[in-house]
């Protein structure tokens, strides 16, 4: 009995120490007696100990766990994961058996089930097979990853039972079922009946289990009333710790990285990432359309290289804005040290007196200067035009403060509570054969492995907020410009909004760059997204871009606008935004029978009515 684990938030650590301290000292009979005694006590005291599982081994596992608060009739979810259909079949007959007992039961396939709804589920009956080499069925991988991952919520309110299908000739017999069973217990859920593992001749065992489950579920079996103790302790586990005044640019919140995956598939010419950050306990909230500010730090390698060039040690004291710090810290966290500004050029020309730099200062040299700065960042200037024995304070005086970078939030709090998702394209390039990365995108790509935290704040972006539920949406985005639309769709799905929506998405290659492909497919299937048009510029000749797709469907686009659609354009400012605007102008002109001026007025009017919104960068 000494090898018990803390069952989770169902019981506080102190209580746990007492229980385990006691139980380890108990003989079997004593344990028996106490279990009986505890069982006799009010539900308040009862549930935490039961949740301790083997702590009171003699308690019949079928003992019904207390029902959660609330008078509403319990709904049973029968959740199955199946590769070849066996579990599916069993799930259906189980649901039927439950209904025969007068219990409301719904069947769900793990493939489509939204793990987050576990939080609000009361009774969960899981039937899963095992495949591969001890893995769950392919379609259940996502669910398992969520449940076994750090994002899984505590589930004190949940009662559950697991039926595991397998084949005893396999090494990892019924492994998937076992994993779920153990994990749910870990998360504080309460086992209704013991897990049953069945071999390929599962009929009888399965029937027996179904029998047992429906008996345990029978309304009579469920003891009435809430379980304050359970509820109480659970709440204690999840209650937000009091937060000081909201975090902001100056005092960013250290957001834990929940996930950080490359979205672009093999062979892509790009690297675009999906980054999930936790806002838990920050008190930070946002609206779809808002952006997240990321306060990144410079690449330590670059800092060292720079110190090297300067011949100054990192611990050289410097003062920045009356703040005393060290050169190393300043270069790492507070100053922009990648691209050089014209001001730094002046500054450096003056310090070094280098003729080549001085020559660039003349007003008529502005073009040359820009071109020069393109290819010479701070590191390159300091390297090519050394300033031996330079004073640290003098050097930093030429640099500007490191700015946070903004990223459109790609998620909705309604779908992912306490989270903010980003879609980040990593800036990589080489100058003078030295590989370089963008400060923030490089930081997110290379220096935030999971479990790290990223300093962030919310950047409100009212003008790009989501139009109301029944307004048709025309969403146009290239590359990472699609990010806010993911948030829009998540929000609308969660709200059950009925308005039509049409997405135009553009990237380079279908196979590797179709960002969030499976999510768009599902949104289309479920009618949340009404229409999707794609432009992959490098798959076909002549190259096609979103604006070409807009033109192709000009008649419909115009019709949508006339129907009061709200138009969103997000992504690349350099080309896309302009090209899209021209396309829209042509469309309005052609189908609205207007000349170019008329078309421009039409679009200007749209902008005034906040029905043509831009978020480009």
């Amino acid at each position, binding site marked *: 009995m000494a090898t018990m684990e803390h069952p989770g938030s169902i019981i506080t650590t102190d209580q746990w120490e007492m229980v385990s301290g006691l139980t380890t000292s108990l003989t079997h009979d004593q344990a028996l007696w106490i279990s009986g005694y505890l069982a006799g006590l009010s539900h308040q005291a009862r549930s935490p100990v039961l949740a301790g599982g083997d702590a009171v081994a003699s308690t019949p596992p079928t003992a019904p766990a207390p029902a959660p608060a609330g008078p509403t009739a319990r709904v049973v979810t029968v959740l199955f994961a199946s590769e070849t259909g066996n579990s599916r079949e069993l799930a259906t007959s189980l649901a039927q058996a439950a209904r025969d007992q007068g219990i409301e039961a719904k069947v769900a396939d793990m493939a489509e089930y939204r793990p987050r709804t576990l939080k609000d589920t009361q009774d969960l009956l899981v039937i899963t097979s095992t*495949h*591969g*080499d001890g893995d769950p069925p*392919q379609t259940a*991988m*996502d669910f398992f990853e969520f449940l076994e991952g750090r994002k899984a919520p505590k589930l004190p309110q949940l009662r559950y039972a697991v039926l595991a299908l397998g*084949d005893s*000739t*396999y*090494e990892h017999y019924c492994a998937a079922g076992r994993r779920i069973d153990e994990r749910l217990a870990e998360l504080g859920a309460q086992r209704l009946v013991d897990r049953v593992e069945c071999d*390929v001749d599962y009929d009888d065992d399965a029937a027996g289990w179904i029998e047992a489950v429906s008996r345990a579920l029978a309304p009579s079996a469920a003891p009435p009333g809430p379980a304050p103790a359970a509820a109480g302790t659970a709440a204690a586990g999840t209650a937000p710790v009091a937060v000081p005044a909201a975090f902001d640019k100056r005092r960013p919140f250290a957001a834990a990285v929940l996930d950080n*995956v*490359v*979205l*672009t*598939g*093999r062979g892509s010419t790009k690297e675009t990432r*999906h980054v999930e950050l936790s806002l838990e306990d920050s008190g930070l909230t946002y609206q779809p359309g808002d952006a997240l500010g990321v306060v990144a730090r410079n690449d330590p390698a670059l800092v060292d290289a720079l110190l090297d060039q300067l011949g100054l040690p990192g611990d050289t004291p410097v003062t920045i804005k009356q703040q005393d710090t060290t050169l190393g810290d300043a270069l790492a966290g507070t100053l922009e040290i990648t691209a050089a500004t014209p001001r730094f050029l002046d500054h450096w020309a003056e310090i070094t007196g280098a003729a080549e730099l001085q020559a660039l200062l003349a007003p008529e040299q502005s073009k040359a200067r820009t071109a020069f700065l393109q290819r010479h960042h701070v590191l390159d200037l300091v390297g090519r035009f050394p300033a031996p024995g330079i004073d640290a304070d003098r050097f930093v005086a030429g640099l500007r403060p490191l700015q946070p970078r903004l990223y459109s939030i790609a998620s909705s709090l309604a779908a992912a509570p306490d989270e903010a998702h980003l879609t980040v394209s990593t800036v990589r390039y080489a100058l003078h054969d030295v590989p370089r990365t963008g400060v923030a995108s490089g930081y997110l790509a290379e220096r935030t492995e999971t479990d790290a935290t990223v300093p962030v704040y919310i950047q409100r972006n009212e003008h790009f907020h989501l139009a109301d539920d029944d307004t048709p949406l025309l969403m146009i985005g290239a590359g990472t410009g699609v990010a806010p639309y993911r948030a829009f769709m998540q929000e609308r799905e969660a709200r059950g909004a009925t308005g039509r929506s049409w997405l135009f998405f553009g990237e380079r290659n*279908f*196979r*590797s760059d*179709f*960002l*969030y*492909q*499976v*999510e*768009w*497919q599902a949104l*289309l299937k479920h009618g949340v997204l009404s229409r*999707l*048009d*794609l432009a992959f510029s490098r798959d076909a000749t002549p190259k096609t871009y979103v604006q070409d797709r807009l033109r192709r469907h000009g008649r419909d686009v115009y019709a949508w606008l006339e129907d009061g659609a709200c138009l969103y354009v997000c992504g690349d400012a350099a080309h896309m935004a302009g090209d899209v605007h021209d396309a829209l102008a042509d469309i309005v002109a052609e189908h609205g029978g207007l000349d170019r001026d008329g078309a421009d007025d039409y679009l200007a009017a749209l902008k005034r009515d906040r029905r043509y919104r831009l978020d480009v960068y």
Partner: protein
Amino acid sequence: MSTTDQTDRSRDVSQPLDNLGPDETLKAKSDYLRGTIEHSLLDEITAAVAGDDAKLMKFFGLYQQDDRDIRDERRRQKLEPAFSFMARVRLPGGVCSPSQWLKLDELARAHGGETLRLTTRQTFQLHHIIKQDLRPVMRGLRDVLLDTKAACGDDTRGVMCTVNPNLSSLHAQVYALAKQASDHALHRTGAYREIWYGEQREPADGPEEPFYGRTYMPRKFKIGFAIPPSNDIDVYSQDLGFIAVADGGALKGFNVAIGGGLGRTDQAPKTYPRLADVIGYVDAESLMATIDAVMSVQRDYGDRVDRAHARFKYTIDDKGLEWVTAEIERRLGFALAPARPYTFTSNGDALGWVTGEDGREHCTLFIQNGRIVNTSERPMMDGLRAIAEAHEGTFRITPNQNLIISDLAPEDRPAIEALLKDHGLDEFESRSALRRNSMACVALPTCGLAMAESERYLPDLVTKIEALLDAHGLTEEPITIRMTGCPNGCARPYIAEIGLTGRAPGKYNLYLGGGFHGQRLNKMYLENVGESAILEALDTTLGHYARERRPGERFGDFAIRAGYVAEVEEGRFFND
């Protein structure tokens, strides 16, 4: 003997669709295989086609697949699986011309991942074709008079024919009939021309599928022609097998074998491999009529409720061999003559050069697992292209996934030999006899049903077994070994002396005791085991065989005599 009206009709085509499996409704409602394929091809949101269309496209020799090596990686990336298509060419008897070879080579380089795959039914597969490239590929094939009709689906599959280079004239006669049989049993729907060639639908004069009707066959149906003494096509694995009977060089007729089939499912005892029964003899003149009679019996009485029980072999075991034979004869209008005597000696290939009776030269190349691809040490694809450019005879793909450069004039041989040498394709005897008699199915990463590696793993496993063979002095002993990545049996593992079928990554069932010339099924010796257990078992059994075999005794026969496995007399008892 019971008669037609007494037999159970509750599961066959006589029933309303609602009483039958969903695929029957799908076929019936597909408008002769058109479905919504045209529409699926246009869908830009996915690289796949609609589920029903994927099933219908099989009738056109096209399989939707995805790269399973990166399936999980893409799932994490929120990308759909890397879908592509496999196209299987219809090539009766495995005979193809140099110009056809060159076109296939060109298509494979342009759209097929720069590889060609020779199959165990003597044809080519192109893998990795993306949806947009399907039409170009199909039209490219048409340019050289090839198609992919019925290479899969519930109809007659590629018709096999012994390659037998030595008996040139007999081969010519049988091959001609095999080709005729393939064309004869082909589906007739115009869907193929409309969808893939973009032709207009013609107003149907008469029924679109005179033989098949709207629901086609209950399941795939396989026909093959064997020319003794070679049983390279494994005639007993065919739904309908013909064993050529000749007088001198002249073809007389065929012994008819029915009810072969190997597919099974693990842990499903009702499914089993079955070898065909020889039911009699027919003259060559009656060949097409015999095909119609046999196929129509399966068409009318095959199980259409449960696809796992729909192959002809189960119809025969359900109804009884006599009943089925009688029904065939009833439809033929005459009784089959008693089977003529024949003998098979092997189901393997003789590698290297042979001279046919007509003095023409033939060279059989060992193509490991039928995979044709360029590697740094062996530019195989380039080499074969060069040969196709120089060659004036034909190519023949063998049922063992090998390739014959066939029908050369003696004076042309040196030039071909030089090309073989240049491209490292001339090592015929350098490998162990076991390797030369090895076959593996495709399996991962393309096959959607694979549970374990096969083509990518067998060569390494054989290398390890070769060490055992050396130790026991069996390196030159021909032993057949066949591996598949799942129990479906695409490399005919159940008639190999050593059979391996995948259960899960790195895990296989091991079978022993198959007949060397395909006359006997093997039996499971170890279940669901990994490499070390397999090697251990083979070390013991091979060692024992080396010590105690009788003169000329085959490993498969020995495994039974020595009591490692019991002899399987009938497929029905395979799982006992």
